[in-house]
């Protein structure tokens, strides 16, 4: 092996913030060649992919609709990731939260009142927390890897939602489509602007981002999370419990995902369907890292991801880009991000093959 990886002496702050930008650039360049290989005009496709979604006001409002849940989930996940708690199952917690919220919406379908929506949010949050509590319990009690349990539980909850919407919760007037009744106005999020799909959930998300930022920079709880993540021995010395941090991470990220599920069901979707999101819970992992686990960075990253979703749709219509290409594009982004991250901390060094004594 003529090469080896070795850690760099120091990593400058500029590099830390430059890596996401570099990753985006590399993704664009690779996308260019990908589109070229697909026989498309790369410049036009990239234009549709990256620029078109931002050209109109309606386009921006749609970006907000997409970015909202991504940011909300990623903000919660980032807290856990800081503590080295790897909750990969936000999609499941989102689904379980949506089931809770949808259950309330359907139970009070005949009633109206301002209390219904807050109750749905509460049920959504609780649902997400309960679903997040399972991997937390397994991790703290039995030492089971939370990566595996949280990921696998995602499939359980998606199938659970399927049972409900194909079965007992199916809309009686829905011509046998696997979906619930449309929620009534009392259980739908009010819109911020008529003519768009922007709902108040987006404002709540912004408030939560701000709260997360304060939590991580100004409170002992946030400090505890960082210490547990960076130096477990120092955390023990400081009297911070690792188990409590794991619990907190899962409850917070579960709550965020559950609330995002509620917002999706009570916002743009307006009912429960078998597949509530295009994998927001997983994409949010990319968003969290792209945003450097920082609440403000996550907002920026959320919009970037939203562009790739909406731009992907535009490119599908305009350039007949296959749907899978959107996934490839996002995958490349994560790949380059992780690669740049790794290379900012390690460098590839060529091992010189038996250099003879040379004058220096």
């Amino acid at each position, binding site marked *: 092996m003529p090469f080896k990886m070795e850690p760099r*002496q*120091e990593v*400058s702050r500029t590099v830390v913030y430059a890596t996401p930008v570099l990753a985006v650039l590399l993704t664009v360049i690779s996308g260019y060649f990908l589109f070229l290989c697909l026989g498309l005009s790369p410049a036009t496709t990239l234009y549709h992919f990256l620029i078109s979604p931002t050209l109109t006001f309606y386009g921006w409002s749609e970006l907000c609709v997409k970015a909202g849940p991504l940011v909300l989930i990623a903000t919660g996940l980032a807290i856990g990731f800081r503590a080295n708690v790897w909750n990969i199952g936000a999609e499941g917690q989102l689904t379980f939260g949506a089931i809770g919220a949808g259950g309330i919406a359907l139970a009070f379908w005949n009633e109206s009142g301002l209390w219904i929506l807050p109750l749905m949010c509460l049920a959504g949050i609780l649902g997400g927390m309960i679903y997040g509590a399972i991997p937390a319990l397994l991790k703290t009690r039995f030492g089971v890897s939370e990566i595996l349990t949280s990921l696998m539980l995602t499939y359980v909850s998606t199938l659970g939602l399927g049972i409900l919407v194909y079965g007992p919760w199916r809309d009686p007037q829905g011509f046998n489509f696997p979906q619930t009744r449309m929620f009534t106005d009392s259980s739908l999020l009010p819109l911020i602007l008529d003519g768009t799909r922007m709902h108040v959930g987006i404002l709540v998300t912004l408030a939560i981002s701000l709260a997360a930022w304060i939590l991580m920079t*100004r*409170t*002992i*709880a946030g*400090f505890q999370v*960082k*210490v547990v993540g*960076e*130096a477990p*021995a*120092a955390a*023990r*010395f*400081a*009297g*911070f*419990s690792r188990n409590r941090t794991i619990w907190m991470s899962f409850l917070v990220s579960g709550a965020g995902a559950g609330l995002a599920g509620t917002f999706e069901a009570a916002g743009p979707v307006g009912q429960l369907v078998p597949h509530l999101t295009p994998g927001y819970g997983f994409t949010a992992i990319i968003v969290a890292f792209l945003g450097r686990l920082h609440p403000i960075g996550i907002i920026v990253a959320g919009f970037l991801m939203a562009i790739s979703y909406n731009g992907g749709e535009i490119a599908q219509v305009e350039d007949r880009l296959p749907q899978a290409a959107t996934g490839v594009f996002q995958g490349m982004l994560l790949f380059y991000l992780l690669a740049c991250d790794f290379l900012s901390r390690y460098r590839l060094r060529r*091992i*010189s093959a038996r*250099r003879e*004594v*040379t*004058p*220096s």
Partner: protein
Amino acid sequence: MQDAGLTPRLALHDISKRFQSVVANDGISFSVEPGQVHALLGENGAGKSTLVKIIYGVLEADEGRILWDGRPVTISSPRRARELGIGMVFQHFSLFEAMTVLENIALGIDGTPDLKELADRIVAISRKYGLPLDPAREIHTLSVGERQRVEIVRCLLQNPKLLIMDEPTSVLTPQEVGRLFVTLRQLSDEGCSILYISHKLQEIKELCHHATVLRGGKVVGECDPAVETARGMAQLMIGAELKQLVRRVGTTSQEPRLTVANLKLRSDDPFGVDLTNISFEGGAGEIFGIAGVAGNGQNELTEALAGEVTLHTPTTILLDGKPIAHLNAEQRRQQGLCSVPEERNGHASVGEMTLAENTLLTARNRLGLARQGIIQRRHARGFAKRIIENFGVKASGPLALAATLSGGNLQKFIVGREVLQNPEVLIIAQPTWGVDAGAAAAIHQALFKLAQSGAAIVVVSQDLDELLVITDRLAVINQGRLSAAVTTAEASIDQIGLLMGGLHGMDHDKPAEGAHHAV
């Protein structure tokens, strides 16, 4: 200093190395003669480790030339260094606990050696240099001194012409130190040069032919240690008059502040040490020392005293009569028991956080640096600033990352953080481990002052000289058992040394060597 007609084994010419803004080595030149035992002296942060890493090929110098036997060389990797004939024994060993001596040595050798032949060579070398070693034993059954032998034998197998030793005696009993010196002298007589890094001036006087003193990355002096006084060398090293430490007069205490009774603890770690029936008392104003060779339960005991491990019977540890053994570290701090763990990085501090943030680890409740869970950032910065000023910590300010401080400065900061909280009881492990003489004196002075204010201090240290200077009473920990306490002023170094190494092996079928050849 170079004799005419004699080519130095290793000559450095104007070696410089920068890390971003810090100049670690600044135009360093000196040479090591064949067979010379050459001391490299300097404070922490003086650039010794950087220089040694350059010589061993771990780092590359920005400027300067290295001459090996008179020829210029580029040492691009440790492997290249070994090819040239440079061996190094690091301060922290890199051995796999669960593997045998033979396996560990085989792993460290370039290429794939024949194990049978290697075992024979190990035995031969260990006989020749008086370093008894059984190749078939597993590392975790060895004492620290024996582990060091593994590292030395590993180097000697490569027939080195230069052996670098980084603080080799800090983990040894006085008797083991004596035996190591015999080996090193033998090597030197055979023409092997030795670059010896230590902060123990007495040892350097005893062993070394020549000393190069570094300060702030530069060579500030060369001397013959046999002629120069220890005090003179220390002053050269820190560049200032050394403050005289006053040997404390033992204060007799009526009421014990800290009482430990029959502390028993099974270690979770398969290579850890179980603590057995540990009992002692620390009085007001008393500094109580716990001596012992590394790996005899010091870590376990420190963690149990500090509260990083909690015990089931609350009355096992009493603080001013209050049972505290069931409380965690932060709860004990709130009762008045502070602690300093042995490991500075990642245990007593978080490197990637600022000094201000690092104060929150232990002082957030005692000093109100956080209220209702909200960090009082001004208070935290203020406290960090107070530590920096009171303890002369060299740092750019409270917002400096802990990782940017040199070892000695970080240690001063950590000790300062606990001492300035005026605890009732302070548990401190290895207070001056790898710390320069100036910082060590500052830390000792702070401990004296704290004791004088009525606190009880427990110092767990492998540095016997240190314990003899600062403690009032001391006991020795060996295989998880604590000996009876003796008054330090009446203790003899041989007696304590025998307790440290001598008892070791009594309940082993294979006794440690140090015990039998001692005295």
